[in-house]
């Protein structure tokens, strides 16, 4: 029975239901047990599954991510919570040299069914070391799947698929979508109670349109949907593509949409240089049909390459917003 829940609740439910189904799943991270997670997502798990499966760790990200790898090599299916994605740096060697590569380097002998969940994003005044999304850093490394849901329904289905996947998945949850009272606006929506999977590698058409394709992921997909509503009022029909997974990237959906609309606006909260927006635009540029369909050069909205500042007007100047998307889309359509 669908009922309306917040994204953090959908994530919590996905983990709980999967742990009920498969005793090989363990959860580890900082403050995930008694505290239930800094962003609430592991609430109730310690009480239900005990401390052998829900493991509070010291602040040793390299240590406990390395442990998740070792546990996976001999048969467990660990879910690791990195309290903020920004903390990945101290554990990066374990992630990109070990987790991502051990399957390949062993000639396919080892499975690495590890999910690293991490809250991402800014927009609430947490400054440059707690506000990044870092999508493209993870997506750049071969061997990692990268997921970034924009709503509770997708979050539950994609997380269940990620947990059941035999490959490492970096599952990035935007803090402004969790639905926590102190982090508005939050994403709320209908979510079936029973477990279900959503395929990794399929984008979602969040709105259908004819004049322009707007591409986003997680919070920028959420913003793009709102922007599309406003554009519609101004007589512009925007198609919104919510990527949902960055690796694998749904190139087919991107090309099909651009062939229809002829205009492309890519929105990202990440740093623009060498990032997601460039990858999406290259996907179109490399495809003869989609490229020919372009009526105007593609455009992008994102962080131009600035550490996310603390003070509100400064942060707003750097991060994407509904207004910036509407403005850029109108420019593209009028060009």
């Amino acid at each position, binding site marked *: 029975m669908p009922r309306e829940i917040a994204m953090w609740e959908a994530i919590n439910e996905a983990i709980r239901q999967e742990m009920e189904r498969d005793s090989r799943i363990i959860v580890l991270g900082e403050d995930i047990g008694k505290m239930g997670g800094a962003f609430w997502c592991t609430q109730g798990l310690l009480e239900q599954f005990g401390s052998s499966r829900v493991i509070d760790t010291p602040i040793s990200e390299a240590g*406990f991510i390395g442990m998740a*790898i070792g546990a996976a090599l001999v048969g467990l299916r660990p879910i690791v919570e990195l309290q903020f994605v920004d903390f990945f740096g101290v554990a990066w060697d374990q992630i990109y040299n070990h987790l991502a590569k051990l399957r390949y380097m*062993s000639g396919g002998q080892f499975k690495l069914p590890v999910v690293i969940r991490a809250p991402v994003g800014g927009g609430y005044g947490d400054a440059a070391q707690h506000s990044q999304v870092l999508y493209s850093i993870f997506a750049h490394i071969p061997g990692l799947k990268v997921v970034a849901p924009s709503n509770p329904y997708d979050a539950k289905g994609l997380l269940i698929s990620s947990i059941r996947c035999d490959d490492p998945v970096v599952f990035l949850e935007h803090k402004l979508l969790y639905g926590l009272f102190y982090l508005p606006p939050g994403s709320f929506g209908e979510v079936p109670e029973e477990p279900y999977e959503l395929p990794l590698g399929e984008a979602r058409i969040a709105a259908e349109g004819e004049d322009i394709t707007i591409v986003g992921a997680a919070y920028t997909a959420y913003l793009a949907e709102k922007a599309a509503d406003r554009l519609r009022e101004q007589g512009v029909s925007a198609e919104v593509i919510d990527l949902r997974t960055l690796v694998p990237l749904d190139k087919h959906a991107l090309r099909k949409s651009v062939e229809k609309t002829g205009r492309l606006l890519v929105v990202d909260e990440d740093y623009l240089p060498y990032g997601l927006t460039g990858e999406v635009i290259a996907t179109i540029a490399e495809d003869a049909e989609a490229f020919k369909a372009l009526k105007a050069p593609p455009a992008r909205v994102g962080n131009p390459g600035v550490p996310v500042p603390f003070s509100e007007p400064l942060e707003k100047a750097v991060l994407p917003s509904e207004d910036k998307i509407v403005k850029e889309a109108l420019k593209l359509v009028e060009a």
Partner: protein
Amino acid sequence: MSRVLLSFKSYSLAEREEKLEAEVTRELALSFYRKMVLARTLEDELKRRYESFEMRGELHLGRGQEAIPAGVCELLSDRDFVSATHRCIAHAVCKGLPLDGIIAELYGRASGVCRGKGGHMHLASSSKRFLATGIVGGGIPIAAGAALAFKTLGEDSVAVAFFGDGAANQGTFHESLNLASIYRLPVVFVLEDNQYAFSTRRSESTAVESNAIRALGYSMPALEVDGNDVIAVYTAAKWAVERARRGEGPSLLDCKTYRLSPHLEIVDTEEYRPEGEKEKWEKLDPIRRLEEQAVELKLASKEDFEQIKAEARKLVEEAFQRALSSPLPAPEEAFRDIFSGE
């Protein structure tokens, strides 16, 4: 102005002697010998062929350090996990990876243990629960994680992390010792102190005289071990492995040894070594040490050693033949194994 006298609590270290008894049978002594000689014979042959550029990439050999993997792996089965380092050939041999698969891997052949995707620093076997990593300190938390899984699953397996004195200055060493200690994990940390991280002496890089001291900071027992004495390594490892299997938690074995090989073949000129140092350690060669001990304990004779050496030469020769008859991988193989189902 007034003077105030304050008192503080302070801690100091004290070393003490730990006595462990070893039972060495003829069978056990010959098993140690077989492992060490097989590793040495393989490495010698690899060195010879590498010097004529038969293999690509670097080559890190571990002449003189064979007693450590031989003594530890004597206590392990295929159900136990080992993480090893870039200098992993002897460890792979002692953990039972097939010789021909190891050789084929070094030659980049399709039948290599990693199908030619790993090379000599990254030998791996899922069935033998063996993984080597080329990143110094990278395998230490991974072994702790395998131990966590054994504990969670109720398996009586143990995990062993082999690493060098260089790795003891990585954060992963300290994080892993702490994690293993707080969760009482069945893991043995085996530090191979060959006194050099490439060219940097341990005494110049490490604030303590012996890394065994560092275990105290993690409430973990540690033993300093003569790493060139396979009987001592085995005895210490038996203590560590058995207490891990009994659920008594992790321990650190700080095995003192010396790398008679350069850090890597051909490139390393070893100018960093003081004169006469290597010659001194050559006299402590663990293979010769075991020969002397076994004769003294009347467990084996010269004939036994000659026979085992001949067997090892034959095994290595045959393994080379099998390995080199394997084809190179097809280029398409490069695009497989990134993700499952590919």
